[in-house]
C-alpha cells in the first residue's frame, strides 16, 4: 500500500515528529552500541581489569565529555589490534558454537515446520471445540524459555527423579539425556521445538483459513484426491506463509540461548553451545569482554549474511510484504 503522494499532507516537521522518536531510540540503544562494539572487539577489555570511572553527577549532557574521555582511555590502554580475531581462527569452541547455530536453525526449524503444518491441518478440519485446541496449543509459546528449560529439560528429563528416568529404572534402563554432545543437541532441538511450534502453527493456520473455499470445491468436482489436492493446491498456496514463518523462526533460532543455558549450560564441554551462549559465558561470566565482543561482531556479520542469502534466494515472495 505505497502511496507516493502521501495520503495525508503534512509539513516536514510533522512527519519527522511521528518517526523520529522511534528512530532515535533505536539508533542510540542498538546501532550506536553495535558500532561502538567494533572498537571494543580490537581490545583486551576485561570486566574486572578494565575499570571505568562511571558517571559523574549532574545532567547527562554535561557528563558526555567525561564519558567519551573515560571510554577512549580504556580502549587505548587495552588495544591489542587483531589478536582477538587471530585467536578466533584457532578457537574450537567458536567453531562448535557456529556449527550448533547452523544445526539449530537448519535442522531444528524444518522439524518445527513439519509438526506445525500437521497441527495446522488438524485444526483446519471441521472439529468440535476448535477454539479450545487453538488456545491450549498456543500456550507453550507464552512461557519464558528459561522456565521451559527448567520445566522440561531439568524437571521432566531429570536422570534421577524425572518421570521418564524413574519408569525406565523400573525396567532396568538407565536414562541419561545429555551425556554426549549429540544427545544434548538433539534434546535441545526437541525442547526448543516445543516452544516454537505454536508460532509456526498459528501462522500456517491463518494461511489455511485465508484460502478461498471455492477452489477446493472445484478440485473435488474435478475428482482430485485428498493427497493430490494437498500437494498441488494447499501446500503451494501456503508457500508464501510457510516461507515467512520458517525464515522468522530461523532468525529467532539464531538467538537461541536461554534454554541451552538452563538445560546443559552448553555442555558436555562446549558441545551444545551456541554463539550467543559462548558470548554470554566468555564475555560476561568469565569477563573477557574484548574477545567476546570480537565474537559478537563476527556473529552479527554471520547472521546478516545468512539471513540476506535466505531472503534473496527463497524469499522473493516475502519481500513483497515489506
Amino acid at each position, binding site marked *: 500500500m505505497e502511496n507516493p503522494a502521501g495520503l495525508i499532507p503534512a509539513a516536514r516537521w*510533522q512527519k519527522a515528529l*511521528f518517526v523520529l*522518536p522511534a528512530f532515535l531510540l533505536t539508533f542510540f*540503544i542498538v546501532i550506536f552500541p553495535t558500532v561502538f562494539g567494533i572498537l571494543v572487539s580490537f581490545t583486551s577489555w576485561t570486566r574486572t581489569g578494565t575499570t571505568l570511572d562511571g558517571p559523574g553527577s549532574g545532567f547527562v549532557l554535561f557528563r558526555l565529555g567525561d564519558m567519551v574521555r573515560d571510554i577512549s582511555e580504556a580502549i587505548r590502554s587495552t588495544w591489542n589490534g587483531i589478536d582477538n580475531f587471530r585467536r578466533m581462527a584457532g578457537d574450537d569452541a567458536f567453531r562448535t558454537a557456529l556449527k550448533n547455530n547452523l544445526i539449530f536453525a537448519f535442522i531444528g526449524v524444518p522439524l518445527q515446520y513439519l509438526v506445525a503444518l500437521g497441527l495446522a491441518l488438524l485444526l483446519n478440519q*471441521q472439529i468440535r471445540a476448535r477454539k479450545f485446541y487453538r488456545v491450549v496449543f498456543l500456550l507453550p509459546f507464552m*512461557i519464558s524459555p528459561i522456565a521451559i528449560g527448567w520445566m522440561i529439560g531439568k524437571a521432566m528429563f531429570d536422570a534421577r527423579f524425572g518421570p521418564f528416568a524413574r519408569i525406565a529404572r523400573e525396567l532396568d534402563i538407565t536414562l541419561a539425556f545429555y551425556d554426549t554432545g549429540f544427545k544434548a543437541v538433539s534434546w535441545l532441538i526437541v525442547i526448543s521445538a516445543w516452544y516454537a511450534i505454536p508460532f509456526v502453527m498459528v501462522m500456517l493456520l491463518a494461511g489455511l483459513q485465508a484460502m478461498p473455499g471455492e477452489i477446493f470445491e472445484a478440485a*473435488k468436482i474435478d475428482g482430485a484426491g485428498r493427497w493430490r489436492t494437498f500437494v498441488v493446491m494447499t501446500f503451494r498456496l501456503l508457500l508464501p*506463509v510457510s516461507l515467512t514463518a520458517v525464515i522468522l523462526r530461523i532468525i529467532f533460532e539464531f*538467538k537461541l540461548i536461554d534454554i541451552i543455558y538452563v538445560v546443559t549450560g552448553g555442555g558436555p564441554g562446549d558441545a551444545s553451545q551456541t554463539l550467543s551462549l559462548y558470548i554470554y559465558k566468555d564475555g560476561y561470566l568469565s569477563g573477557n569482554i574484548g574477545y567476546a565482543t570480537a565474537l559478537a561482531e563476527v556473529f552479527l556479520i554471520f547472521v546478516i549474511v545468512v539471513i540476506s542469502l535466505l531472503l534473496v534466494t527463497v524469499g522473493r515472495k516475502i519481500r513483497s510484504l515489506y
Partner: protein
Amino acid sequence: MHNPKWLQITTYALLAFWLVIALFPLYWMITLSFKNLVLITTGPFFFPWIDYSPVTLGWSDLFESGQRNRFLTAMRNSLICAIGSGLLSLVLGSMAGYGLSRFSYKVGIWRNRDISFFFLSQLILPPAAVILPLYILFVESGLYDTLFGLTLLYTVVGLPIVIWIMRDQFNSLPVELEQAALVDGHSALGAFLKIATPIAAPGMVAAFILVVIFSWNEYLFSAVLTSRTSYTLPQLVATQVSSQGVKFWTMAAVGTATVAPLLVIAIMLERYIVRGLTAGAVK
C-alpha cells in the same frame, strides 16, 4: 469438505496426543510444586489426592521464608518493565507506524519502504551481538541495574514488532475520516490522536500484548544489565536452577508463578495474540 469416519477418528486422536504434549510439562511442574523430597524421590506420582497427598512446601518456601523478598522484588520489576516497555513502544511504534502508513517520506535516498525495512531489520539482530558494548555503555552512563535502562532497552526491542503491526493496522483503515478531520482544521497529530487511534485499538492491544510477553520472558539483557536491584523473574528462575539443586518444589513454585500470568493472558486474549503474530503475513 465432509470427512470420512476414519479421518475424523485419526484427527481427534492426534489432537488428544498433542494436548498431552502441550500440557504435560506444565502439569508436571504444577504437581511438583506440591511435592516434597520424599514424594519426589519415591515417585513418580502423577495424580494429587489419588496417588499422593499434596504438600505446600514449595509455596511456603516462596511466600513465607527467605525467598519471599527476592521473589516479590523480581515480580514487581518484571511487571514494571513489561508494562512500561509495552506502553512506551506502543506510543512510539504507533506514531511511527502511522507516519509510515499515511505520509510520504523522502530522506536522502530513503523512502517509506526503506524506513520500514530499517525498523523491521532490527528483528534480525541477536541480543548477544550487542550485549557487551551495551553493558559498557550502561555502566558508564548510570543505566546499569536500573529498571529505567532495562525498560528502555525492551522498548527498542519491541519497536519493530509494534511498528510492523500498527503500520499494517493503519493500512487497513480508510483514510477518508482523517482527511475530513484535516479539512475541519485538525493537525496531522490531532487526526492521528482523535480519529485514527480509537479505531486502531485492536492492533494496539495485539502489539501491546506481544511486547509484554517478550519483556516478561526475556533473559539475556536482564542477566547482563541488572544485578542486585533490578533483576526480573527469568533471572530469578535461572539463578534458582543452580542454587536450589534438588529442591524441585521451590523451583516448581517459582516457575509456576512466573508463567501463570502469561497463561491467563493467553487464555483470555488469544485472539489478539494470534492477530499480532500473523499481522501482515496473510493478505
